[in-house]
Structures are given as structure tokens and as C-alpha cells.
């Protein structure tokens, strides 16, 4: 096979491989939600409700895939449902004196509640899964092959982060979103409808979060249950601050968080069962640490949309 000289019993190497493979596997929902939230926050609004959107996306994708037999139909429905949640957030937020943070919490509860309500019937049946491309066939090590089994949605997400990075800088739409996010007054003076841009940006964010949910239920972990997300949508929102509202940085940050999320299962797979719950908490601790490290008490963060501080 290769120049890698691995002993028969891989030991720690297999943990590392599992974490790398896990980072690729686990990061996709983080990536989609954080890209969606980047679009929303760049327009000057914060949507904390993406956690609920993620859960509802996971449920609706799974249910659609079970009923139609097509995983891609599930992805489409999840994106559509996510978009509706985003539009709902954007529409309510344009009412005067409605707090976008509190509204996000309400949508988090509402989205999860609806998903649990309609998802009850779909916990048992199994749905067709999204396809993955085996990039590891050159190796005869099972661990390497497993780690490089890469899902199509991950590749789409990676391409999307490059595209969004380019589009926010170089396209007219990207410019309008940034103007609205940086200064409501400037945008109004230029004749843009601020509320409409934010409505659409929140809707677009919802679409991506819904697709992230589809990945959860249709690929990894690949089933539907009520604990499927447990805060991943919220961590992805925190990750946007860490990534400084830059889609390319979102990609790197999502991989980092995916790796942290994969640590627990990877250690468990080699028989480390002590402290399982603590490893399970690793992504939350990492998110909190990153939040503390990247926040600043006195001045706005570099790259932060100007209107966001007022929205918080």
C-alpha cells in the first residue's frame, strides 16, 4: 500500500484516524448551519433558532426519504422546510420591538416541538441513505477506507463555502447584504429595502440549516431520534463568531468542531469507556473556550457586521 508504517494493532493511530474521519463526517451539519448563519448575520440579524431548524430538517428529510424512497427528495424537503422557518423568523423580526434573540429561542422550541410531534412515527422505519464517495480505496487498511468515505454533501458544503466567500466580496447581491448588515442608514439612503434583504438572508440561512439537518438523519448518524442534534445548531451559531463571519474560516472551524465531536466515539471504539460523558461534552467545552477566547469586552470584533451589535 503506502509508505505509512503502521503496526498491525493500530492503537493510538487508529484513534487519530478515527478523529480525522470523524471530523469529516461530523463537521457537515456544523458547516451548513454556520454558512447559513453567516449569511443571516452578515445582513445584520442573529437567528438562534437554527437549532430548531436543524432538528426539523433532520425529521422532515428522514420522513420524506422513508415515504418516497429517495434521500435527495429528503434533502430538498428539509431545505424547503428550513427556508420556511427562516422566513418566519425574518418576517416576525421586522415587526417593531421584537427581540431577535428571544425569537430565536422561541423558534428553537417550536421547531423541535414540531419535529418531535411529526417525527414520532418515523423513529422505527429505516430510510435510504445519502451516497458517499470512497476516496480511500487505494489503502488496504479498513480504518483509512472508513475515514475517507466522504459524503457528497460534505463536498457540496466545501464548495459552497468557497462560493459564498467569493460571492460576498464580488457580487452585487453580496454587496447589498453587506451594506444592509453594516449600516441600515446607508442601505436606506441607497434605496434598498432593509427588511426585505434581511428576510431573504434569514430565509437562505434557514435553507442551509435544514439541509444540515438532512445530513444528520440521512447519513451520520443516519437515523431519526429526538436527541439527534443536541445543540449542534447552537454551537454552529457560536462558531460563526469564531470564524469572524468568513465562509472560508467556517469550513476550517467546522472541521475542528467535527473532530472534537468525534473524539468520544473514537475513544469508545478502542475500548476507552471511562469518562464517556465527559468526552461527549468536549464540543461544548471547546465552543465555550472559543467563545471566551474570541470575544472582546471593549471593541467590536474585526469583521463583525456593524448592525449586529445593536441587534444583540
Amino acid at each position, binding site marked *: 500500500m503506502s509508505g505509512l508504517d503502521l503496526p498491525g494493532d493500530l492503537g493510538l493511530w487508529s484513534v487519530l484516524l478515527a478523529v480525522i474521519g470523524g471530523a469529516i463526517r461530523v463537521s457537515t451539519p456544523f458547516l451548513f448551519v454556520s454558512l447559513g448563519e453567516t449569511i443571516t448575520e452578515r445582513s445584520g440579524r442573529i437567528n*438562534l433558532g437554527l437549532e430548531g431548524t436543524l432538528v426539523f430538517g433532520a425529521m422532515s428529510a428522514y420522513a420524506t426519504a422513508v415515504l418516497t424512497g429517495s434521500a435527495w427528495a429528503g434533502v430538498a424537503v428539509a431545505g424547503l422546510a428550513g427556508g420556511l422557518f427562516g422566513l418566519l423568523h425574518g418576517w416576525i423580526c421586522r415587526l417593531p420591538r421584537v427581540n431577535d434573540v428571544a425569537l430565536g*429561542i422561541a423558534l428553537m422550541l417550536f421547531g423541535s416541538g414540531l419535529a418531535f*410531534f411529526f417525527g414520532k412515527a418515523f423513529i422505527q422505519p429505516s430510510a435510504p441513505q445519502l451516497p458517499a464517495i470512497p476516496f480511500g480505496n487505494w489503502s488496504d487498511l479498513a480504518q483509512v477506507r472508513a475515514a475517507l468515505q466522504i459524503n457528497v454533501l460534505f463536498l457540496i458544503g466545501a464548495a459552497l463555502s468557497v462560493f459564498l466567500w467569493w460571492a460576498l466580496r464580488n457580487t452585487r447581491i453580496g454587496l447589498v447584504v453587506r451594506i444592509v448588515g453594516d449600516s441600515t442608514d446607508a442601505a436606506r439612503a441607497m434605496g434598498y429595502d432593509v427588511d426585505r434583504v434581511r428576510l431573504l438572508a434569514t430565509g437562505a440561512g434557514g435553507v442551509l440549516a435544514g439541509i444540515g439537518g438532512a445530513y444528520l438523519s440521512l447519513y451520520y448518524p443516519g437515523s431519526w431520534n429526538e436527541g439527534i442534534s443536541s445543540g449542534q445548531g447552537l454551537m454552529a451559531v457560536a462558531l460563526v463568531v469564531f470564524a469572524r463571519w468568513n465562509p472560508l474560516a467556517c469550513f476550517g472551524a467546522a472541521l475542528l468542531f467535527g473532530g472534537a465531536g468525534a473524539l468520544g466515539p473514537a475513544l469508545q471504539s478502542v475500548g476507552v469507556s471511562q*469518562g464517556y460523558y465527559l468526552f461527549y461534552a468536549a464540543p461544548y467545552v471547546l465552543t465555550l473556550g472559543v*467563545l471566551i477566547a474570541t470575544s472582546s*469586552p471593549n471593541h467590536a470584533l474585526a469583521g463583525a457586521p456593524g448592525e449586529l451589535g445593536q441587534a444583540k
Partner: protein
Amino acid sequence: MVADTATTDAASADSAVAAPRAPAGLQLRAWAARRAEAAVIPLGALALGLGLFSLFLASLGKSPAAFLDLVYRGGFGSSFALQNSLQRAAPLLFAALCVALPARLGLVVIGGEGAIVLGGLAAAAVATPLSGAPGGLGIALMALAALLTGALWLGAVGALRAWRGVNETIASLLMSYIAIALANHLIEGWLRDPASLNKPSTRTLDEAFRVGPLPGLEVHWGLAVGLVACLLAWVLTERTTLGFAARIAGGNVRAAQIQGLPVGRLITGFTALGGALAALAGFFEVAAVHGNANGSLVAGYGYTGILIAFLARQNPLAIPPVAFLLGGIEASSGLIQRRLHVPDATILVLEGLLFLLVLMGETLYGRFKVFSPHLWGDKQAAAGLKPSGAPAP
């Protein structure tokens, strides 16, 4: 008992209309009009939410009338149901205060669930080495352990907000997930009672350490303590300089700093107090309900508490009636599941819908002339209006 702040408000608004035209009466009328607005808009949102939810049920072929009947019977219709609702309302009082107190400073703290779980765990952990001590001492130390744990846990979130600018909403929810993971780890590890086989839990408390029911009721003392806490929280926020300072800091941080107010310490103090109170709910769950700390501590009280605080518009005195209402709705959940054959998440859907509508209601404040204090009390403003044109509320 305390369930009727809203109707009291409405009643006082009526009596205020009939009051003599003395200046005091006018002031009372102006006050009542403003208060009536704070009661009528959330109640309207509540009614609209129930209406929309009825449509939701009807579209699924379930009878809304049967649903309402089951909520009444399961939550309020009998002595047993009422006691059950009050029992559930007890932790909700603390959980809602955990949101309402930091809200004075303009903070949205949603990590009450974690403080509840860790509070309960701390109480149970302290009880084990104290085994055999006098009951009163044991209970006091358990409560103290819970209070301190909760204060440190959420006070840390406040301190991070104050001195590092960390978003308290996200941080508190992350802390909540961490708290639950930590509690699971300890309950299945160090603190596990080897005798608990199927359901991992800590050692069962000494009988002397159990908190009993209120005299003449089956509801535990947590309810009474929670009501007193709501009252004290109201005094703190409305009648003390500390509460006033917090409100100024919540309105405009820069102005408060220029005034020389210790904004950082206020933020840390109020979040710590909220955390301590939420943890007290965990203490009562362990000492009065479960008898040990186990997975049942993660019951979602923290999340319902968020909804209650927003329904009560962060007013500590409005929390008890709202908590009683939602305690009753949640108490009827089991009955509704069995009779209507719907998933347990039905109540979650209703709660999420109510939450959305209550927030949308925020936009209506000040839109209705009926509630304008000027119309009812302020003579100078009233002079500009037709004297006979004042409609009844």
C-alpha cells in the same frame, strides 16, 4: 390563591373607572390602564395561541374541545389534578426567576436547566457524607450546597459577559449541556449508589433529610419557598436601589457606567442569584420528590421557565399565575397522550406556539389608545381629547 393577578388587574381597572374624580383616583386609573395593557396583551396572545393550536389539532382530525377538556381535567379539574399542577409549578417558579432576574439587565439567560440539574446533584452529594446528622442541619447544608453551585455556575456566565463580552445566551445554554454531561458522568460514576442497577442514581437520602409537604396539602415546601422568592425578587427589582441600578444598566450600559454604577458586579450578581434560585429547584426535586439525584432531574423545567418568564413579561409577581397555568398544562400531558393518541411533544408544540405569539405581542404595546395613561389620568393630555370619548377597557 395567587393565580389571578391578571383578573385582579382587570377588576381594579373596572373599579378605577367608577372611582371618584379625585387626583388620587385619576392616578389610580392611569396606573390601572397601564397595568391592564400588560395583562390584556399576553392574555390575548394566550387565547390566540389556543385558537391556532385548536386549528392545528382539528387539521389532524383530533377534537380541540376534547383537548381543552383534558387539559382542564388533567391540570385543574380535581383536587388531585390541582395538587399535581402545583407540584409541577414549584420548580417552574425558580426556573422562571432564573430568566427574569438577569432580564432586568437586558440579558437573555437560558441555561436554567443546567443549574437545576447541578443544584440537585450538589444537594445529593452533600447528603451522603452527612448521613446520620440532624435533619434540619442536613437540609440546610443541602440547600446551601445547591445555592452555591447554581450561583457559581451561572454567575460565571454573567462574569464572562461583564468582563469578556461573551454572549450570555449561547454561553449559558452551552453550560447547560456541559452541566448535564457532568451530572451524568458523576451519577454513573463517583456518586452512583451501587444498589441502583436499572436506573443509575445517587444514594437515597436519609428519611430525616426529606422535605415534606405543606400543611394540609400534598405539595412540597418548594412551592411556598418559590412564591416567597417571587415576592422577594419583585421587592429587589422594583423597590430597592440595587434593582433600580440594574434597570438603568439594562437600559443603557454606557449611561450606567458614567453614573458610576458597578455594571459588571450587577450583571454577575443578578445572574448568580438566578442560578442559585434555579439550583434550589433542583434541591427540592431531590429532597422532596425523587429522594436521590438521577436522570429524572433533566425534566425540561429550565426551558418551560424561559417561556413562563417571557409570558410574565419578566415581572416576578406575574410568574406564579403563569407557572401555575403551564404547570397544569404539562400535568395534563400524560392524559392527553393516552386519550387523544398524540405524541408527548404535543405540549411542546403548544408551548412553542405560545412563545412565538407572546413575542409578537411585544409589537402591540403602546398601539392601543385605550391603555394610554393620559386618557385615564393625565389632565393636561386628556384636555386635548374629547372628555366623553373615553371608551371602556
